């Protein structure tokens, strides 16, 4: 009875305090209190100092599942904003200079130059294909501008045998693995050489040879799939991981939650690589979540995690390399949140000027560009100069144009292939429907694009 009275008394005191805090004068006080708390608590409040009546009370107890948890008599609700923010791992600054105290990852000249070449190639490719869409030559496109490092430098830290599941803004990963400009162009033009046989929208790439699972439009569906794939790798005792890419918006899908939880409980060697670029189409992150980004969710799932400057090529490379090592060594998932900025439109069907300020975009372009940062770093090392950079751009421009023109000239896949691959073997009803369609098109050859056959 006495304890109950104490409890009520202490709750009444808290309520009085809450009331007091609602007055404007008290607000300053309370925010001061919060900031003090911020410094005091590292994570959660420590158990309250025991009162005289409970001096013999245990400091912890066992709960369901045999979990031993600390006890506290302090009625303290933890607010997310009182938790420390996750720091961003950075190796080079926005001018490409080594951050004091940072350790440079082991990166051979050859690898560094391949990285920068790939980033230039991706940027040039985006520029040309974006304009090709504007001219109506392809139906759709999505650029990676500003996010080249998140793709290329994480891919550089993986092994070629590692399996990749992507969202759609990861062509740099494929490019790093050797997907040719012709491969890209053929997919964009849905021609007969498209590995996907012309069935999906542009930028939905995939290649079994390069262990890059084919992209699909539904967001986040690939995340639990990546976990299942990683489980398969673990079972086969292959020293490989799965790398799964997604954006900050996709992380709001239920499949993200399912995947994190499955990966942790089933102990899968998978890297979850989140590209946090600030926007999901027009939705800024403050409408997407209220926690400390995506990385702060990892501990809730019992998962290892790191937040990285996504525009810092070296940081992305080093973090991915270390995460991969950890995932393999301990058969556990690691979440990487790569902080970046989507400089381009969401897609060719979007106009960013309707929901964000030009200054904001310009600022990122001019002050925090992943390619410029890496180039500056290589400059300082004497590995690259402005002439080399220009030569790279010129070479890539010619190569992209050549691939585009070649892709445009190739015809579409054969018409009957529309019915193939629904199942491994074509069932009777599809055989019938195919015959029906071909007969119909043969009857009206002038009314259909492939009426004259291919």
């Amino acid at each position, binding site marked *: 009875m006495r304890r109950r009275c104490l409890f009520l008394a202490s709750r009444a005191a808290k309520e009085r305090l809450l009331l007091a805090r609602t007055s404007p004068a008290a607000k300053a006080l309370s925010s001061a209190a919060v900031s003090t708390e911020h410094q005091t608590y590292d994570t959660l409040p420590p158990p309250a100092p025991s009162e005289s009546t409970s001096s013999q009370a245990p400091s912890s107890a066992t709960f369901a599942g045999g979990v031993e948890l600390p006890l506290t008599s302090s009625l303290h609700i933890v607010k997310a904003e009182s938790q420390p923010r996750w720091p961003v791992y950075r190796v080079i600054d926005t001018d490409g200079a080594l951050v004091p105290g940072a350790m440079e990852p082991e990166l051979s000249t050859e690898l560094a130059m391949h990285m920068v070449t790939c980033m230039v190639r991706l940027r040039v490719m985006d520029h040309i294909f974006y304009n090709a869409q504007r001219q109506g030559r392809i139906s759709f496109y999505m650029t990676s501008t500003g996010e080249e490092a998140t793709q290329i430098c994480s891919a550089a830290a993986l092994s070629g045998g590692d399996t990749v599941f992507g969202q759609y803004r990861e062509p740099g990963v494929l490019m790093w693995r050797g997907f040719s400009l012709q491969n890209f162009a053929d997919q964009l033009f849905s021609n007969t050489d498209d*590995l996907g046989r012309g069935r999906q929208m542009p930028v939905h790439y995939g290649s079994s040879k390069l262990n890059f699972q*084919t992209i699909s439009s539904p967001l986040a*569906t690939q995340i639990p799939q990546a976990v*299942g*794939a990683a489980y398969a790798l673990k079972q086969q005792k292959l020293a490989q991981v799965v790398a799964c890419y997604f954006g900050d918006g996709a992380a709001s899908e239920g499949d993200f939650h399912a995947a994190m939880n*499955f990966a942790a*409980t089933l102990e899968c060697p998978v890297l979850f690589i989140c590209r946090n670029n600030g926007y999901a189409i027009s939705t800024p992150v403050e409408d997407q979540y209220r926690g400390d980004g995506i990385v702060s969710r990892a501990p809730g799932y019992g998962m290892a995690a790191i937040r990285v400057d996504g525009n810092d090529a070296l940081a992305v490379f080093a973090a991915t390399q270390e995460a991969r090592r950890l995932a393999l060594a301990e058969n556990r998932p690691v979440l990487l949140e790569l902080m970046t900025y989507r400089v381009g439109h969401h897609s060719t069907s979007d106009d960013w000027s309707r929901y964000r300020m030009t200054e904001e975009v310009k600022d990122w372009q001019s002050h925090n560009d992943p390619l410029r940062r890496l180039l500056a770093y290589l400059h300082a090392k004497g590995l690259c100069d402005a002439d080399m950079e220009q030569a790279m751009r010129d070479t890539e421009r010619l190569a992209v144009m050549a691939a585009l023109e070649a892709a445009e000239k190739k015809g579409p896949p054969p018409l009957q292939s529309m019915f193939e691959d629904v199942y*491994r073997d074509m069932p009777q009803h599809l055989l019938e429907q195919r015959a029906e369609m071909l007969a119909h098109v043969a009857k009206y050859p002038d009314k259909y694009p492939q009426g004259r056959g291919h």
Partner: protein
Amino acid sequence: MPDCHESYIVNSQSCRPDLLTILNSAAGLNHSLLLSLTANLCRFTAINSAMRVALQTDPTATVFGEDVAFGGVFRCSVGLKEEFGASRVFNTPLSEQGIAGFAIGYAAMGGTAIAEMQFADYIFPAMDQLVNEAAKYRYRSGNEFNCGGLTIRAPCGAVGHGGHYHSQSPEAYFAHTPGLKVVMPRDAREAKGLLLASIRDPDPVIFLEPKALYRTSVEDVPDGDYEVPLGVAQVLRAGADVTVVGWGAQLRVLAEGCDMARARDGISCELIDLRTVLPWDAATVAASVRKTGRLVVSHEAPRTCGFAAEVAADLQERCFLHLQAPVARVCGYDTPFPLVFERHYAPDALKVYEAIKKAVNY
């Protein structure tokens, strides 16, 4: 009775010995072989036996879902974890979309994934993974990748007191999805053969198990490794006056309806089990309808856009000149599955009998 989940025992009177004999003899299996191989069902279940064979014959095969490690809420995976290890038979967190996504990824790496949804009623959170992902995986990648090693098992159908969320038959939702195969066995022996065929099929399969059969179907099931082919319907009994088509547990109801029609009115029914709902065996049904001139299709699921609608529409196109009566559908009503009115809701033998009589007397 064997080790049963007591709350899911249905009226065993619907499981009459003479009917079982008919269904068994129609199964088309070699009986001398059966005699040497059979073990009485329900030691565990036919499903358990099929999964055991799959795990024995395929080192990549895994069994997972909610509560499968201890044997499953319907005891379908009893003993498998002990026999094959916790890395191959394991619990997942409680998330159907996670189970389906995980299974697709495992299959996409070439593995055989046998995933369980605890009830077909709870498969809907996985709908996106199954319809947008599993079904289209091969097609959209130009056959660069596939998830053909995937089988999703889900207990379905009426059980006597399952209410809204322990009674549904969702086959028609999936039958509308190119790329999936949808299978529903009528009894234990069929269940084992069809499940093994589904697990080994190169395409993703939704395998719906009428849960009413888990405990009532007491015929012998071969112990060994056998398959019942997918996409092939089976004529369970030949008849001259009317073709009666169904799948899953409804076959027992249909057989009873046919018995009534013969006993009371001398009507000769040709009874067909579709077995595979997608892709379905239209040719076998059409051949029957050309002979009988009448068709009754029946399922537990609601009538509107139920799979009977597809069968009826397709058969009237194929057999228009042979039809002597409108195609009849005997289905669940277009309501959620009710609790207290289940016996009124069910497309039972009497309703089937009435439809048969009406078709013949049209």
